[in-house]
């Protein structure tokens, strides 16, 4: 698979980071090369940036974006969870990172719980997918929805076949009878 960058935003940075970590685990489970590029670690290791808080946030997002770009162009699934405001910053990162998938997490009923809007309308590089973390599905549903979205976009391999075809199941049943199991 080719690398890509998943960029999560939302009303709560802590929630976005938590969902990002869980998506990272889900992709690791599938054997993928994955890295969560956390803003806190970037600030700690690459510097806190300017004194002005807004400028510091933007500087951090640029640094996170830079690392994600390097990782994803080398075949890694990079995941970020940093605010993408103001708009020019978003445009800058969209231009810089190939195969960028933006997902906005929402805590309200504006998006259906546990689903992501379908890919396909308009260039992917200009889209922000919306995933809800509200309702019964909560974080679990959001993680599932994001992984499904990445599968639909072709960034993540599916988890394989759906089991037996009818004739295969009959053959397996016959073998199980032969072996005495059923």
């Amino acid at each position, binding site marked *: 698979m080719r690398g890509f960058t998943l960029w999560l935003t939302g009303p709560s940075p802590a929630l976005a980071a938590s969902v990002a970590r869980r998506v990272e*685990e889900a992709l*690791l*489970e*599938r*054997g*993928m090369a994955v890295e969560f590029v956390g803003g806190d670690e970037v600030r700690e290791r690459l510097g806190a940036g300017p004194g002005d808080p807004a400028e510091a946030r933007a500087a951090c997002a640029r640094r996170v974006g830079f690392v994600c770009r390097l990782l994803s162009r080398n075949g890694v699934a990079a995941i970020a969870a940093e605010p993408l405001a103001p708009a020019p910053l978003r445009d800058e990162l969209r231009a810089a990172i190939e195969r960028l998938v933006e997902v906005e997490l929402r805590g309200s009923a504006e998006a259906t719980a546990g689903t992501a809007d379908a890919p396909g309308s308009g260039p992917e590089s200009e889209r922000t997918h919306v995933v809800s973390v509200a309702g019964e599905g909560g974080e679990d549903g959001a993680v599932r929805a994001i992984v499904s979205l990445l599968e639909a976009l072709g960034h993540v*391999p599916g*988890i*394989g*076949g*759906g*089991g*037996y*075809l009818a004739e*295969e*199941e009959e*053959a*397996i*049943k016959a*073998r*199980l*009878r*032969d*072996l*005495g*199991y*059923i």
Partner: protein
Amino acid sequence: MSKRLCIIGLDCLTPQFLFGPWLAEMPHLRGLMDGGIHGNLVSTIPPITVPAWMAMMTSQDPGMLGIYGFRNRASHGYEDTFTVNATHVKAKTVWNHLSRNRLRSIVMGVPLTYPPRPLRGVMVCDFLTPGKDVVWTSPPELASRLDDWAGGEYIIDVRDFRNERKRETLDQIYRMTNARFQAFRRLLSLEDWDFAMMVEMGPDRLHHAFWRYADPAHRLYRPGNEFEDVIHRYYVHLDGQVGRVLQELPKDVSVIVVSDHGAQAMHGAVCINEWLIARGLLTLKRYPEGPTRLKADMIDWSRTRVWSEGGYYARIFLNVEGREPDGRIPAGELAAFKRDLKSELENLTDEAGRNIGTRVFLPEEVYRASNGTPPDMIVYLGNLDWRSAGMVGGRQIHVFENDTGPDDANHSQEGIFIWQGRGKPAAGAADRVSIYDVAPSILDYFGIATPGEMIGKVL
């Protein structure tokens, strides 16, 4: 330095043979025992390959997994059943957790892994793979190299198992065992891995096919028969195969040898549906002229309260009003009905009228959850001295030839467990190890905390 762990799974390897007098001829297994802990492994209820291996690798009981055997009910419809495969396993396996922690696995032949799922590492699916014309490895291209690595042919399972051509069966078992061990050794040497696990089905196939020849307590045993020493020699051969794996491993690799259940002599089969018919609990539309496998469309549901399916144990299903389509047991009488039926089953006798010591388990009593559609009762006929024959039409309850062909052994509740290199504090005999303790102990070995959904403890 990073830790590595290798598991050699030997389906059905049984403690009375492994830990008995033959041990002196098995230096490699004895050496592993001396270097760590060993003991009997207490299996799942029921002690069957599926669900046992997956319960071992997830530390969840069959009820939590919603997998009660190879065949399961999808609903309370009479014919709504399915054959389980890996897509039905929702719980996380050891290699799922290891992948999440960036550790690489080799998984080969572990029952209930078909169809293959991607993981950090490689997977070769189990004997429930339909054939080599499907995707049965992860990555898929691995399949094309397995025959070569196996020295000619990687054998998924013994074919045409029920026959009297014993030499041919024995030859197949040896070829399968040798090929799979050889392929495993190649994987160990070629792959980068932290955790490696193979399961070999040969011991199970051997016990079922040859027990009568080796066990003086078996009804059909004849002293001096030509196959008398077959099981003994196969165990010694397996020890040699284990030794060749050990040669491939650096000295710092920890090794587990484990089976999913044991084996014991099978005295005969109880035709459980004939027994139900005799008690007026099961009524057929028309009694067949000869032995016939019971199918749902043969049953007069309006006059049936209980039916069952065969196998190494019996699964009992109740026809309950408001639950089954044509239920006949009033829901309000269900508890009393179950109690009475359980008592009757526990009083089952052999052909001479002697109580055979049947044990009856209720899913709601032995599992922490009853996901999916469990059987109403799980029955060990004669505590697994007898198997369950599902056929009807034979006009007898006790039979001494299996309904599916020759079979000499049944499964027993306890398998084996050896862990070399676990460390001195736990060294020595472990007495009994729960099958549910294996997965949390593996994760602990790699420094991973026991996930909340696992029910076992760290050894």
